[in-house]
């Protein structure tokens, strides 16, 4: 799935610790079953209270957080965890675009819709552990339809890649349609996501995503300060 993560596994790196916070035991059990099939991941703690769960497993590298706990949206808790540097993957059935964008603004590393399934869930958690972006189709839709006047300005290619990824859920099909490689499709989508690290309040997780994006050559350091004016240039990085 991801070359780097695979390499780490081969070199015997310890598995990534995951904490799951959800108020439905059935969801916890289901997600635990999904993650159990992936040797690079290990579930350290689960529960319905983020504080309790993280006290039990302070070393957890990724937190899967249900956005609605006991009938309350926990965006404030999400912001608090993200500010403290916790990599939070929001995992929710509330897939209204506004909710997804609010979660990104609050510092969530990724937003995963509950119906998006095992493959996206694993990919998201693995990417999050490396501070790499992963944009599942539902989040791509929210980003491409973002109506806010202060939204990050995306290039035409980035918009198109997001739109087609949202529509088809198949990067191979998007690549054929745009006549580019799958790798380039992923770059456009990920670069759009990185632009969102500059929306909303600053968070340690956003800085980490941005730093890793520069390290990976996804964006150039000189582009960071001038994202808005650079948005029109479409240069897939090698």
């Amino acid at each position: 799935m991801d070359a780097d993560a695979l390499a780490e596994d081969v070199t015997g790196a310890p598995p990534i610790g995951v904490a799951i916070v959800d108020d439905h035991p059935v969801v916890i059990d289901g997600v635990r079953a999904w993650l159990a099939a992936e040797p690079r991941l290990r579930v350290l703690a689960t529960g319905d209270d983020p504080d309790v769960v993280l006290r039990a497993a302070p070393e957890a590298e990724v937190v899967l957080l249900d956005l609605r706990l006991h009938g309350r949206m926990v965006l404030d808790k999400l912001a608090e965890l993200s500010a403290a540097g916790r990599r939070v993957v929001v995992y929710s059935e509330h897939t209204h675009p506004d909710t997804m964008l609010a979660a990104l603004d609050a510092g969530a590393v990724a937003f995963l819709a509950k119906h998006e399934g095992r493959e996206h869930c694993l990919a998201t958690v693995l990417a999050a552990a490396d501070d790499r972006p992963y944009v599942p189709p539902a989040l791509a839709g929210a980003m491409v339809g973002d109506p806010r006047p202060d939204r990050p300005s995306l290039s035409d290619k980035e918009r198109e890649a997001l739109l087609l990824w949202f529509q088809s859920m198949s990067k191979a099909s998007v690549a054929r349609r745009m006549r580019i490689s799958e790798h380039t499709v992923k770059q456009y989508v990920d670069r759009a996501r990185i632009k969102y690290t500059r929306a909303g309040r600053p968070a340690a997780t956003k800085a980490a995503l941005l730093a890793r994006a520069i390290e990976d050559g996804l964006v150039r350091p000189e582009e960071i300060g001038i994202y808005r004016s650079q948005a029109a240039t479409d240069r897939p990085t090698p």
Partner: protein
Amino acid sequence: MSADLGPSVGAPGDVARRPRLPGGPAGAAGERVAAGAAASAVASASDRGARAAAVTIALAWHVAIALPAVLVAWPDLAAPAVVGVGWLVTAAVGGLAGVRLLRRAPLPTRRLAAVLLLVDAAVFAAAGERYLFTTANWVWSGLAWFFVLVLWRRPVRWLLALLGAHAVIALGELLGHGATDPADLTRYAMYVYGTSSLPVAVFVGAAAIAALARDRAATAAAAGAVAAERVAAERAREDRRSRLALVSGTAEEVLADLAAGHADPADPEVRRRCVLAAARLRRLIAESDDVPDPLLHELRAAADLADRNGLPIEFIAIGVPPKLPVAVRRRLADPLTAALADARRWARLTVVAGPDEVVVSLVTPDHDRPHATGPPAAHDEAGPVEQVHERDGEIRWTQTRWQKT
């Protein structure tokens, strides 16, 4: 699952559930403009009777009362030709103003008012002392009605100013002829009052009626819009409620069968029922529009139909489409509904809409049968709607895209 459904369908707990597209307020403003236009149309229609009455009074007075008096007094007038020409000019002004008024065309108000004042002064002078207070000096009693015609729909102070000038001209003539007896001055005052009061009353009355009608029509239009919106919202709620009943029914049935052990999770048929029930629930949760947009409504209806035929379908709409002409809407929706009829196994129908762009897409697994959809890429006069049909062995992809030009 159904416990979660309640809040997401309509409770206040959800964060920022309302769409914030600029389309919303713009649509409301558009409705207000439409209501305003309707109101002014009503005002002008209700004003039509008053305009016809004013034109009739002015011209009838001019022809039936002023003309015979002038003709009878013709030989004894100081300057009969001037009085006659004045009469003709005024008749022309009245005719022009009348036609324009009845057709609701604009009038050169200032120029016509100046012409009338000129005629006023000339005829007063040309009538002579002997005919000063008689009907042969027709301007005194009849001209005020022409002022009313020329100044229709203008502020009432313009009329008062013209009538004031009219009174000053008359007073000047009076003084010029040395008719300064108390009796003459009293007659003068009575004449001024008598010739001005009725035209002013008609003028003010017509303006008031028009304003009232405009207000009432605007209120009625606004109330109508609110009522229509409420009916639409109620219908949407009813629809949603009946769908919820249907969905919970299917979901409960499958869950109960599973719980009781009647259904085997390994059975493909049971899995298909689960997928179908889950897809229905998700679509219901995703519905967030209180008053359905016509395009989304059409697509949702098509999705519901496919669902009833047993096709698990996802329908996700992001953003609110702007008001689109019916032709554009058809071109956006029809290829999708046609492709949907052809779909196998599952379908994903998406809409991404903003004020300047609407993209509708349907993705289904590819199969061997040819596309049953209409002609490719088309442009029409209401703005370009682009169509893309693709199949790549993995999926079939139908996309329509409208962009504001």
